[in-house]
């Protein structure tokens, strides 16, 4: 049997394109995706960078003057007029907006500069700026009269952007929540008669589930993509059978003095070895390149290794199944189509392409039962809790899947006289 394993390993080794696809592709992909995402979703969030122009079309002092005139013409007592004017002068709505953007916390990730509208639009068009915030003409006047005189405000602060994007949405969120709280203040100011007690503001905050390490997006990518490529390995090794069938290698093996089942065993064992090697190399190089699991104890790596071994076994089982299928079906395209279909289904359901949390619960439930989905769930728990008891059941399931797949492969393996 040793020679069969050697044969399959050699066949793999001699095709450098495949080695490239099996090793370099997942590593490169994870590294690239990691960089792409860490650019946006960093731990400290400071990495979103918004470049915003503030276009000041409003003239606050003229607006205030106009408001004063309206008040003077209005039907109020002298004292009322004085307080209203004083209040309006103290509000200065456009200054509130400027102050908000000059706030130190916000300045870290929103860069603002004041520009005339035309220039700002050009810059947004060129893609140098993300958006424009326009303080429209008459803003001071309208806001003041809305607050004091309960008039419907006719102008609105305008966010202008080329089209909707993550940056624009972030800006909209910031501005909307600021304006909402501002409006609420005005509302409270107008309604609450007495100066009430100081509000008990919520503290909020996160309660990270005790004693756990967080599951980051780079860890998600590492696990999802390495399990996906491990699944491809089953197909890669199994589909070599097509060539071996066409070139009559299989027939010669049948005529030789060895048990044909060794052929299947050779495929299975070599897939197991290759998959395990692939996963170990991928994890090791990512750990070295990106330091995905910093400061983890030896026990963690041991557990990871155990799970990977069990998963590699399952992949080997799949490979046995695909090999037996190839020997049974005459159409090689059908085999590869079918195996691709199986792998893609497993990949999508198991969340190897994208997190499946957003999908209906039934799909999530199915995903937990795919080998790659199960491996991912187990590894999430292992990363977070490092509880060895949690590993046992999934590993048994993975081994059981291997046994079942291998059993089916054995039973549909061509019997004597059928080749």
């Amino acid at each position, binding site marked *: 049997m040793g020679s069969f394993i050697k044969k399959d390993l050699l066949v793999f080794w001699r095709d450098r*394109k495949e080695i490239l696809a099996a090793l370099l592709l997942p590593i490169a992909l994870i590294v690239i995706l990691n960089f792409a995402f860490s650019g*946006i979703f960093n731990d400290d969030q400071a990495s979103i960078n918004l470049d915003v122009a503030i276009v000041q079309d409003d003239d606050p002092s003229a607006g205030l003057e106009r408001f004063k005139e309206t008040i003077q013409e209005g039907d109020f007592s002298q004292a009322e007029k004085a307080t209203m004017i004083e209040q309006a002068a103290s509000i200065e709505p456009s200054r509130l907006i400027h102050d908000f953007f000059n706030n130190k916390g916000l300045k870290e990730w929103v860069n603002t500069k004041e520009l005339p509208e035309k220039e700002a639009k050009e810059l947004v068009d060129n893609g140098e700026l993300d958006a424009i915030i326009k303080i429209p003409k008459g803003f001071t006047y309208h806001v003041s009269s809305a607050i004091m005189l309960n008039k419907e405000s006719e102008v609105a602060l305008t*966010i202008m952007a080329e089209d909707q994007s993550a940056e624009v949405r972030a800006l909209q969120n910031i501005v909307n929540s600021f304006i909402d709280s501002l409006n609420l203040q005005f509302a409270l100011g107008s309604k609450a008669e007495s100066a009430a007690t100081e509000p*008990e503001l919520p503290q*909020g905050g996160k309660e990270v589930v005790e004693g756990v390490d967080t599951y*980051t997006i780079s860890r998600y990518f590492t696990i999802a993509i390495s399990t996906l490529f491990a699944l491809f390995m089953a197909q890669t090794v199994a589909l070599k059978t097509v060539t071996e069938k066409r070139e009559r290698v299989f027939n010669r093996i049948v005529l030789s003095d060895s048990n044909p089942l060794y052929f299947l065993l050779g495929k299975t064992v070599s897939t197991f070895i290759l998959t395990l090697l692939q996963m170990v190399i991928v994890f090791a190089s990512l750990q070295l390149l990106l330091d995905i699991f910093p400061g983890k104890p030896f026990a963690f790596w041991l557990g990871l290794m155990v799970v990977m071994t069990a998963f590699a076994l399952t992949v080997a089982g799949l490979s046995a199944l695909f090999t037996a299928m190839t020997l049974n079906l005459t159409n090689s395209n059908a085999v*590869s189509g079918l195996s691709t279909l199986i792998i*893609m289904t497993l990949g999508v359901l198991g969340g190897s392409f994208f997190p499946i949390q*957003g999908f209906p619960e039934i799909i999530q439930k199915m995903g937990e039962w795919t080998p790659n989905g199960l491996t991912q769930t187990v590894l999430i728990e292992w990363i*977070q809790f490092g509880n060895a008891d949690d590993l046992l059941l999934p590993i048994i399931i993975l081994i059981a899947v291997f046994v079942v797949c291998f059993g089916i492969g054995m039973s549909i393996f061509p019997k004597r006289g059928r080749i």
Partner: protein
Amino acid sequence: MYPVFMAQWLKDKRKPLFIILLIGLSILATVIFGGSRQNQSSSVTVFATGPNAEEMEQKWTALLNDSSDMEFVITDEEKAREQVREGKSDVAIRLMESDYRLITASDMPNIQFIEQQVHQVFTKEAQLEAAAGTENTMELRNEIEAYLDHPPVKVESQTLSGGELQEYNMGMQLLFGFTLFIVMFTIGFKVNGIAADKVSGVWNRLILSPVSKTGMYAGHLLYSFCAGFVQMLIVFLIFKYVMDYNIGSLPMILVIAAVYTLSTVSLAMLFAGIANTPEKFNMIYPSVISIIPVISGIYMPPGTISNPVLQFIADLFPLTYAVDAMMNVAIFDAGWSDITLSMALMLLIAVLYMGIGINMVERRKG
């Protein structure tokens, strides 16, 4: 060309099971995955503890659900914590009298967004209660709500030219993305017929026949084109007439689909050129193809992937252009002139890859 085309068709007609299965399952997968994200809002589990837990849960979920398009669902504590623990959901929220805690074990990007929303609701509530003092908050709340219907400071969003800034429809992008992605497999397996003919010797016999070389390629490629296009046609018809999605002008979508199919046929031809045998094609093609949507950012909102290397790689494949063009048609009611650039780039890809691919296939001996 015609006899070669017919030969491919007859092969499938005599053994229709495989192609029907492939196309059928592709359509099924597209409809399930593409469609399942339509009109789906994400939900967050919440729970409260203590003697008047139920009351708190009712109060806060009502307020929270009012304020955003996320759905806040009451769950019991154990289940919520377990789901977070096992990574089935990213976050749960523990509600308290006037405060909250996010319970999370991960560092996923959407958590910050949820926190912001929740924080706003709680802050507003705290201020309301403080203002009301000992009085009933209900009355004050109604007054404030009425006031806020006509707020003094308003915000609006618009495009540079003053048009409406459309909310991006992520579900629609997934729908198109998935349809276009899955059809790549069907096309790939059909194009692989050329390599299969070569190793089985059929190709050599065809060379000796009166059929021209161009005709041989054209027959195969046209058949692959038809298989891919028919699949997409069925999917789009289902979306439009059975599931009633608003996918925009159907003729335009179909023209984009046709151009995309053409460039995908070329792409598959390039892969056939790189791989020597049909088996190698079957190994390399699916593993490369399946990561294209990830790189192109089809699964994520636009702008998520801003890395220049990734963008460059994505630009090498027709998927981005096609999804872009289709989104423009479906959401922004784009006209022909708006999608010309995408179409031109897809055609360029088609010409380039086809040229390189056929060249590589031809250069190989035997």
